[in-house]
């Protein structure tokens, strides 16, 4: 195992340990705050899986978060659908993946890359938000849908009820840990290495017999599916869904979370999302208008001082320590 992988596993183990012990010290409100931040972290990890591995920026990723959220809301609010929570989550994942597959097919096989891809996905986000506003008979228009019940189901003797703070926190934390670990395993294996090669030189990869557009499409679809899952979890925890969840602001925020946490690290964006969410709540409680200004400053500082994100602090300190030790 190479040092970079070992470092990642150490940080992951520390994060999981902190997530396990946190409920012993936190009250119900604090648990829900971290739970919601973890959901946004999952959303950030989904973007990072695509952006970090392929180098292609999706500027409308919130569209998939919103699609997942609306499908979950519509499924669970319909009493006629049995096992609404389970079908809602599966539908959210499938719906986001389906939309990504349709859009991605035309983009990747049409040779759309780089800033052109970014612009098209930005437009996709705007269209999704507008659709959520305009299709009011289904989506509730500007006000969205409220009264979405918490996840609860009985399946094969397994009773799950996430109406309480602690079970919902454990459920979300477990999903985030499993998904991030799975994405990391994919990234460091054969699939991830070919994606790195595509990022370096797509024509060369194709000339070696790899179907590069298909690999990019599969990565995009998986990334969108996870964003859909995050959206589904969020609306159940928040109890509402609104057009903002698929909007440009959230698409921009998730890019900031990934950049601050460290693009290509998967774990960094989760930590970046949690850190920024916490900071936003703390600072906004003093002065709500101060937060956007501070967020912009933090983003600029991170880009200049820590271009690889906050997760690179650990590697930097480690190499600094290892570098000095022989001289002592």
């Amino acid at each position, binding site marked *: 195992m190479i040092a970079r992988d070992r470092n990642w596993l150490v940080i992951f183990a520390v994060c999981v340990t902190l997530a396990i012990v946190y409920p012993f010290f936190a009250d119900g409100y604090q648990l829900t705050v971290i739970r919601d931040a973890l959901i946004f972290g999952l959303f950030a990890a989904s973007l990072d899986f695509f952006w970090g591995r392929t180098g292609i920026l999706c500027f409308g990723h919130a569209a998939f978060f919103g699609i997942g959220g609306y499908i979950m809301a519509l499924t669970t609010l319909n009493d006629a659908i049995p096992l609404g929570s389970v079908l809602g989550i599966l539908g959210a994942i499938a719906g986001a993946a389906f939309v990504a597959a349709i859009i991605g097919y035309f983009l990747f096989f049409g040779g759309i890359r780089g800033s052109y891809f970014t612009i098209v996905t930005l437009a996709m986000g705007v269209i999704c938000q507008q659709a959520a506003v305009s299709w009011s008979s289904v989506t509730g228009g500007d006000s969205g849908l409220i009264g979405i019940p918490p996840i609860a189901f009985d399946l094969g003797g397994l009773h799950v009820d996430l109406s309480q703070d602690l079970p919902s926190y454990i459920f979300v934390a477990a999903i985030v840990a499993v998904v991030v670990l799975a994405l990391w395993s994919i990234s460091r294996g054969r699939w991830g*290495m070919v994606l*790195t090669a595509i990022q*370096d030189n797509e024509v060369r*990869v194709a000339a070696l017999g790899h179907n590069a557009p298909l690999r990019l499409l599969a990565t995009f679809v998986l990334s969108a599916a996870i964003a859909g899952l995050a959206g589904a979890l969020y609306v159940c925890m928040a109890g509402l869904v609104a057009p903002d969840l698929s909007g440009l602001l959230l698409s921009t925020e998730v890019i900031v979370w990934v950049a601050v946490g460290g693009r290509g690290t998967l774990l960094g964006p989760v930590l970046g999302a949690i850190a920024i969410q916490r900071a936003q709540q703390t600072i906004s409680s003093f002065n709500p208008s101060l937060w956007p200004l501070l967020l912009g400053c933090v983003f600029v500082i991170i880009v200049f001082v820590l271009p690889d994100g906050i997760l690179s602090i650990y590697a930097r300190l480690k190499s600094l320590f290892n570098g000095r030790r022989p001289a002592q």
Partner: protein
Amino acid sequence: MSDVLLQAENVGIRFGGLQALEALNLTVRDKELCCIIGPNGAGKSTFLNLLTGTLRPTSGSVRFLGHDIAGLPLHRIARLGIARKFQIPSVFPSLSVEDNLKVARWGASSPVRPVGELLDLVALGNRAATLAGELAHGQKQWLEIGMALAIEPRLLLLDEPTAGMTPQETLATAEMLLRLKGEFSIVAVEHDIRFVRALNCETLVLHQGRRLRSGPFHDIETDEMVRDVYLGRR
């Protein structure tokens, strides 16, 4: 003629008002080594792009194992058994030498050679863990040849494999290809005459998009018209 791998018949291509190539013929048989030479601007790389299906000819046809390959996606052409080395060294700088070869191997329908053997073939055994972006220019060229070999092609097309190499590296590359002769068919596009002399194989000379001469290299080398073209007298 069942051993014919690649056949280009009366191939030509026009870009707008410019007739870049005209009425070119080339037959490559199984395990044959041949060179395409010519001065700068003769149309060598364009001809190679036609042979690999990257460009579609405006006249004539290119067939590989009987299939028309023009316009096929690159990965399908590779899977048919055509590997290409690009003119500018085209490796994955973020990956190690070993990982470059692994990615190449994974693209093959049925990879045969282990990575260690490929490393030895291209004389990079001691650089396996080095990032490809940190290799010297000549080593990048060798790595790219190794990557092309990794997909176990029937036909290896090399676009100026010795560009930017020292004379020693050029000769080492020629020796490498001579060792591989008999395993694959190889077509090398080159304008370094020392390299072509070392290979001493069937040679097609292009000039201004047309065939000037073709035949064994020792005949080509002594041809007055070829000498004139290379010395710039025509």
